[in-house]
């Protein structure tokens, strides 16, 4: 280390002052530093030093643990990179046809004939018929209810049941 004891103060000051002023400035510094030297600062207590050494030892242990943790993380990252690279290479080879991978079989829950049908006109006609029949049944139910309140609705009810049975069979025939 190029310490203060080896430097030439006068030469340093001569870069900024004339020779006489530089000599005076160097002397001011020497005298000022002598005063500081003659008035030493107190020393740290033994207990303080002992405590610092304990703290330092703990910090060293912590640093070691961090180093090991970092090494483990690095190894884990390296392993992950190798694994991902391996999977990538395998996929790439399978795309090239080099490696056969298992086929995935999948199926729709709803038959494709239903989803694929474009005969909407016939479905619309069937729906129109069905709606008309439902309306008819509703009006007849209304009639039955009014008859019931009058105390004579047996024949109407039988007729209604027959119609419902007929609608049911027609609907399922298509």
């Amino acid at each position: 280390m190029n310490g203060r004891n080896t430097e030439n103060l006068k030469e340093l000051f001569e870069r900024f002052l004339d020779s006489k002023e530089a000599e005076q400035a160097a002397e001011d510094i020497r005298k000022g530093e002598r005063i500081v030297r003659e008035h030493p600062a107190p020393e740290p207590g033994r207990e303080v030093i002992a405590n610092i050494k304990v703290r330092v030892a703990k910090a060293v242990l912590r640093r070691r643990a961090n180093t090991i943790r970092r090494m483990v993380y690095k190894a884990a990252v390296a392993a992950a990179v190798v694994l991902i690279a391996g999977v990538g290479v395998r996929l790439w080879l399978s795309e090239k046809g080099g490696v056969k991978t298992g086929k995935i079989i999948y199926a729709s829950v709803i038959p494709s004939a239903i989803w694929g049908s474009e005969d909407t006109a016939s479905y619309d006609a069937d729906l129109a018929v069905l709606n008309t029949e439902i309306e008819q049944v509703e009006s007849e139910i209304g009639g039955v209810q009014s008859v019931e309140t009058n105390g004579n609705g047996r024949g109407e009810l039988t007729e209604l049941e027959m119609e419902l049975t007929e609608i049911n069979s027609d609907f399922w025939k298509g």
Partner: protein
Amino acid sequence: MSDASDLGNIIKGCKNGNADCFSQLVDIYAGRCYGYFYRLTGDRGLSDDLLGELFVRLVEKIGSFKGDYFESWLFKVASNIFNDYLRNKQRQKRLLDGQRKQLESAEQEDKNSSGEQIDKLQMVLGRLDANTREVIMLRFYSEMSFKEIAKMRSEPIGTTLAKVHRGLKKLRELMG
């Protein structure tokens, strides 16, 4: 102070995480670093705290030491710790209170006792501006050259020389 090659081996040991080597560093430099902190703060308890913080930070940062001049590096870390401390407003208030108390007590003490002499220097240092006080103490305790101090503080060597010269001249006048 230990021989340069011994110090080199100690630092090498520290870099390898050897707690005994750190312990030796504490033995070598605790006195000087403590003096530096004490002269800047005038508070023994605070200097104890800053000294502890310095050596713990040394453990964390020793890997970043690549230069030849360990003492320059060590006092740069010490200076950073002191300036971090100054930036903390609450602690800064405590420092000012401590210095005021010390100033008051120093004035009351008998001027002929040796204890008074130490306090008198501290009192006079308290009259210098913080920047000048720091550069004077840095030079005294780190034993760095003006060139190294200027480099460390990122200022022209003429500025460093002027600060130290002006500060020490004033200190001499005030000490009588």
